[in-house]
């Protein structure tokens, strides 16, 4: 596997292999000295054209635990502000010697485009509304360990709640969860669903309360406040009343059910209860697992040689 651009490019077997490799990375992370020399001499450059705290730091930590060199390209203080094109930016940094770019961009398809301008590996760290494949992998890993489902998600019932329309996390998660065999229901007001769900292997519901007792995983998405300006929601309070995780709703979840959120959370909107008091919350576990998953991704792209066994079967 040369690039990680989309969950679509991965088969169920590829995802399983990546999660198995993640087990090893989690073990490395738990050592007294959580660092291995596997990617010594490799140069990993983060190229974030959009804001991010956890994803950028997570990739940075992952690269460092594998002993790769890291370089943060701060777009706000770069020549992009002088009008340098994306292509020139990529070619310039590539000329310094880069093995992988971790790219976040507001335009869907930008990471794919970049693969044409460099021979480095590209990891998509979020492109527009399109994909966020490492988020989906870390979510799969969190469910796999949290519910002890090592071999398959067959029979699991997962609800993804919130702004599906503008969410690259939802798109990637739906693909990954269903590839592993889970049953996914999207829960959202009609204005926050994509215009067409043709080809999405999911059910749709507007009634979260009816689903709650049967769920194995409740996945809450961030309500992007800027959507309020687009008049897609009458008010945040109404959203919270219909779709937010309140104390009453939390009490109706099955005891084993996991509550997940990709962050950053809007407390009081999509999540009203304090996640720290919620026994099923694995929200911080997601963050921890994110580092291990990204180590597995970087190692697969940069450390397995050209004959890597992941990503060749899709």
């Amino acid at each position, binding site marked *: 596997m040369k690039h990680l651009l989309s969950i679509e490019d991965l088969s169920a077997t590829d995802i399983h292999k990546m999660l198995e490799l993640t*087990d090893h990375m989690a073990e490395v992370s738990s050592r007294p000295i959580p660092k291995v020399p*596997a990617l010594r001499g490799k140069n990993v450059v983060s190229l974030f054209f959009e804001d991010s705290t956890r994803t950028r730091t997570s990739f940075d930590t992952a690269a460092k635990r*594998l002993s790769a060199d890291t370089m943060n390209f701060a777009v706000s203080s770069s020549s992009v502000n002088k009008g340098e094109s994306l292509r020139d930016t990529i070619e310039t940094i590539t000329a310094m010697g880069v093995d992988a770019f971790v790219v976040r961009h507001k335009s869907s398809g930008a990471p794919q485009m970049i693969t044409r301008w460099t021979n480095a590996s590209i990891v998509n760290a979020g492109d527009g509304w399109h994909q966020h494949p490492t988020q989906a992998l870390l979510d799969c890993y969190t469910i796999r360990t949290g519910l002890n489902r090592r071999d398959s998600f067959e029979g699991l019932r997962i609800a993804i709640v919130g702004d599906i329309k503008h969410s690259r996390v939802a798109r990637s998660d739906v693909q990954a969860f269903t590839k592993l065999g889970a049953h996914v229901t999207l829960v959202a007001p009609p204005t926050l669903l994509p215009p067409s769900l043709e080809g999405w292997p999911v059910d749709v519901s507007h009634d979260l309360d009816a689903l709650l007792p049967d769920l194995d995983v409740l996945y809450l998405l961030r309500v992007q406040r800027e959507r309020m300006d687009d008049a897609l929601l009458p008010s945040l309070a109404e959203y919270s009343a219909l779709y937010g995780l309140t104390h009453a709703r939390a009490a109706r979840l099955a005891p084993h059910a996991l509550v997940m959120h990709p962050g950053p959370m809007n407390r009081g909107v999509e999540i009203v209860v304090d996640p720290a008091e919620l026994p099923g919350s694995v929200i911080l576990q997601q963050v921890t697992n994110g580092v291990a998953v990204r180590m597995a991704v970087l190692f697969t792209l940069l*450390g*397995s040689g050209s*004959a890597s066994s992941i990503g060749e079967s899709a």
Partner: protein
Amino acid sequence: MAQRTVLSADDIRRALTRIAHEIVERNHGLDGVVLVGLQRGGVWVADALGEVLHGIDPEHPVPVGSLDVSFHRDDVGIRPIVPGSVTDIPMSLDGATVVLTDDVLFTGRTVRAALEALNEYGRPRAVQLAVIVDRGHRELPIRPDYVGKNLPTSRDENVSATSEGVVIR
């Protein structure tokens, strides 16, 4: 390709018994001795040695762990690296006498990676190496402390050592 059996299951059992006694002799008992099998081929060796040692001296239980050295190898990026099971070292290695075990000692590169990986779990008092077969062709200055059998081989032969026996292909 022709296949020949060099050691039988009985030979392996006798070799393990001898190595176990050598470990006790060399270390004046089993105080502080731990066994660490190298993934994947050395794990059964550590388990088997642990059993024999328990038979020799039940008063001193010998902890057994396993070590995956994939991320410490010197050929990362040159050939595909498929990790074995996850490393499992349930004991402290600080001050311990670690007996690394492997099935076949060949170039010595896996052992080099293991020595480096061990450092991340503590600082052993000493590290010793036990192997079922030493087939030669070392590429590094590494030698075993305990050997089941020295086996002259050619470089392109394939040697496998399990509790069932040692086979050259």
